[in-house]
């Protein structure tokens, strides 16, 4: 993204949590920021990259991004890294030893939990990493706190030479609220100081660092106990006291304005003594946290009587409307009758592929080939599991299509002996974690046909640049990976590698049909860009000649959202079989002329749309009027 002039200090701005963190990162004088995209964290780095005087990069995966940030922090500079919750699973190998070396320059790692799974493959609670890796966790409850805690995170990080986890959730990352911003400071880099005992983690070196980590735990706990970020708020209605963090705190304050509350901002290590103080002044204590009962279990282990997930949901988002009845039940009060009308039953609107998306051709083709088992991966192309294609059989984690496909091949039972195994993976996912899996297929002589869907962008998260499209985060030219060469050097035979235009259905069909029959690994690379990126060029739109459409419905099977049914009917075939008819039109105003729907149209009823100029329209109206 292009650089912008940062707003002056003291401005009050409407900012998302992501924008607030980005501002704080810039103000803190961070020198290096690295990330791999992932909802809801993506905008943090996107916005950071618009600030001057720092280095920002899209890394190929979260582990690499964390390692880049670690290197910068070792060099004595402040650094930043962010990711969605599942990203930390990928980065955790580095994290778990980083905790032993610690850092020189401050390092804040922002992790965004998709509570409620608005766009993720699972729901997980990143606060565990604080416990697992012995790191402090800060939990903002709104944009202002996201800003404040990021600033504080660098102070904390440098005070204890410890990386700090900023735990966010979708309701922080994507909620916009008012933020008062401040002045930028620019701490100089201390410089890398050689110190093998500190930076080279061998068994001997690492074991000496473990006791230091325990000492740090103690010091951090003391700091958490004293921190203003963990605030005891008095309240007159002492029947129930609450302990809450993140967005849950806002819901508690909204639902129970008069209750005493321990607001946790510096939530790991848990300030047990503060919790004891709250317990002493309230009849009962309820811990309200998203999503796991982490604080609850730790307080129970410390001998403090609290309630939590025994009365509150164990997964998904909390809200005042969930909290109020739960607490009413706890107090034996009548549960507030809801006067609200129940939601109406309306058809679902699952996410669709875009008009003219190059993946449409791939999935239409896959839906027409029989006898396939298709290991899928994560990206826009995961939508191929849905209607009308139903052409994706597994999806688990990024890059998994490779290993899963090999496992499906090697583990096949008698019933599957003639099944063809395919793997479908996007360009970004391939570079993130798929390459190693392909190497494994080659090395272990797997019989898998890989479809590498190169749309030259990280489509799912908004079309970010990657090493496959030759542009860096600022849209400047960067070295561009050649997938054919890459795949070849991983050991796939040259004659088993095909580059195919996914809009050419017959070629795609023939290539897939032939390659699945070859009992060794093949890679078919599609090469048309994501329609949401600059690389895509629109073509002349199409329309349906009404008099020619026979209602066969073949075009609908392509799955393009520009095709609409105008009327339905029935036809009795010569065989006596009754078939459903669906006559269609193309919404020419959104059609970009990819030509996919043309290809299965038997009566050739789809033709270029000739737009009528407004002048002609006016004239036509005038003629009618005369």
């Amino acid at each position, binding site marked *: 993204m292009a650089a912008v002039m940062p707003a002056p200090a003291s401005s009050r701005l409407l900012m998302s949590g992501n924008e607030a963190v980005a501002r704080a990162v810039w103000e803190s004088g961070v020198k290096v920021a690295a990330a791999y995209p992932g909802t809801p964290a993506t905008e943090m780095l996107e916005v950071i990259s618009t600030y001057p005087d720092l280095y920002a990069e899209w890394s190929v995966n979260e582990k690499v991004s964390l390692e880049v940030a670690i290197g910068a922090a070792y060099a004595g500079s402040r650094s930043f890294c962010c990711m969605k919750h599942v990203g930390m699973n990928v980065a955790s190998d580095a994290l778990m030893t980083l905790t032993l070396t610690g850092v020189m320059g401050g390092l804040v790692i922002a992790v965004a939990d998709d509570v409620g799974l608005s766009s993720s493959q699972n729901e997980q609670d990143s606060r565990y990493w604080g416990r697992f890796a012995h790191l402090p966790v800060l939990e903002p409850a709104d944009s202002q706190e996201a800003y404040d805690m990021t600033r504080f995170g660098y102070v904390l990080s440098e005070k204890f030479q410890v990386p700090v986890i900023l735990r966010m959730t979708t309701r922080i990352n994507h909620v916009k609220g008012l933020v008062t911003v401040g002045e930028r400071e620019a701490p100089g880099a201390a410089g890398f100081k050689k110190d093998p005992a500190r930076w080279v983690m061998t068994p001997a070196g690492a074991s000496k660092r473990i006791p230091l980590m325990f000492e740090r735990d103690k010091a951090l706990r003391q700091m958490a106990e004293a921190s203003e970020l963990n605030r005891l708020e008095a309240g007159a209605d002492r029947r129930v006291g609450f302990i809450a963090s993140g967005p849950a705190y806002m819901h508690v304050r909204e639902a129970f304005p008069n209750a005493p509350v321990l607001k946790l901002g510096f939530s790991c290590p848990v300030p047990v003594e503060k919790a004891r103080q709250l317990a002493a002044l309230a009849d009962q204590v309820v811990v309200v946290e998203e999503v796991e009962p982490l604080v609850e279990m730790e307080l129970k282990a410390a001998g403090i009587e609290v309630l939590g997930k025994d009365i509150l949901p164990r997964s998904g988002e909390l809200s005042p409307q969930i909290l109020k009845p739960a607490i009413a039940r706890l107090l034996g009060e009548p549960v507030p009758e*809801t006067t609200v009308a129940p939601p109406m039953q*309306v058809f679902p609107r699952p996410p669709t592929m875009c008009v003219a998306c190059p993946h449409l051709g791939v999935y239409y083709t896959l839906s027409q080939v029989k006898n396939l088992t298709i290991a899928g991966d994560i990206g826009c192309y995961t939508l191929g599991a849905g209607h009308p294609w139903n052409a994706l059989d597994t999806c688990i984690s990024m890059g998994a299509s490779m290993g899963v496909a090999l496992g499906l091949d090697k583990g096949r039972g008698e019933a599957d002996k003639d099944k063809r195994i395919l793997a479908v993976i996007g360009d970004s996912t391939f570079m993130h974690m798929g390459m190693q899996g392909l190497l494994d297929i080659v090395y272990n002589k797997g019989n898998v046909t890989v479809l590498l869907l190169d749309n030259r962008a990280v489509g799912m998260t908004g079309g970010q640049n990657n090493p496959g499209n030759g542009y860096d985060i600022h849209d400047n030219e960067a070295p561009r990976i050649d997938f054919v060469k890459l795949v070849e050097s991983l050991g796939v035979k040259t004659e088993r590698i095909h580059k195919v235009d996914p809009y050419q259905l017959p070629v795609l069909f023939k290539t897939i049909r032939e390659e699945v029959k070859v009992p060794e690994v093949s890679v078919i690379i599609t090469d048309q860009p994501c329609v949401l990126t600059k690389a895509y060029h629109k073509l002349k739109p199409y329309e349906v000649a009404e008099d020619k459409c026979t209602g066969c419905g073949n075009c609908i099977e392509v799955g393009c959202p520009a095709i*609409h049914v105008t009327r339905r009917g029935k036809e009795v075939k010569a065989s006596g079989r009754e078939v459903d008819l669906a006559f269609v039109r193309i919404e020419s105003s959104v059609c970009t002329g990819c030509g996919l729907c043309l290809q299965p149209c038997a009566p050739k009823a789809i033709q270029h749309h000739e737009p009528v100029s407004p002048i002609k329209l006016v004239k036509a109206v005038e003629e009618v009027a005369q």
Partner: protein
Amino acid sequence: MSANTNILVVGIGGQGVMTATEILAEAAIALGYDAKKTEVAGMAQRGGVVSSHLRFGDKVLSPQITPGTADVLLGFEAAEGLRWRHMLRPDGIALMNTARLVPPVVELGLFDYPEDPIADMRKSGTRVVAFDATTIALGLGDVRLGNTVMLGAIGDHLPFPAEVLLEGVLKRFQRKGEKVVEQNRRAFEAGRAAAKGA
């Protein structure tokens, strides 16, 4: 806390729902209110359901609107109004674009699109003002004016004068020149009139 104004803007990904809510939020902030804006937007860019919550007042805590407490529902698509009408308070008002955007699952014959979602809303007791923002925009010379028509529609249903919102809308188009600003002014006024007329 009941003094907060709750506005729910709904539609589908790509319609500009989130931007419209942001413009509303900025107008509220310009008047000194505290405000929070949040979306329930699964993969919004891909034609999915988008509902954008705006709450403003002296102090806003939870960003989400509790079902049954929205003051105004601004609907960019007819069936989406039906999907979200339970969010309105009993005497709240729905300002509905009559545009129908039919998703592929309906075209495939797997689900039905309601015959007349606006009538269904009314039948269920919701106070609805409906208008065709797309046609209004086309009449003014550009479909893209539809979102300004929608913002105009809510202009007289806010606890502050429509002019404050109008100013915020026009500011967004300043860079595009006087002609575009003028077009948007007319679109806003047309939306205002449409929401009054019914």
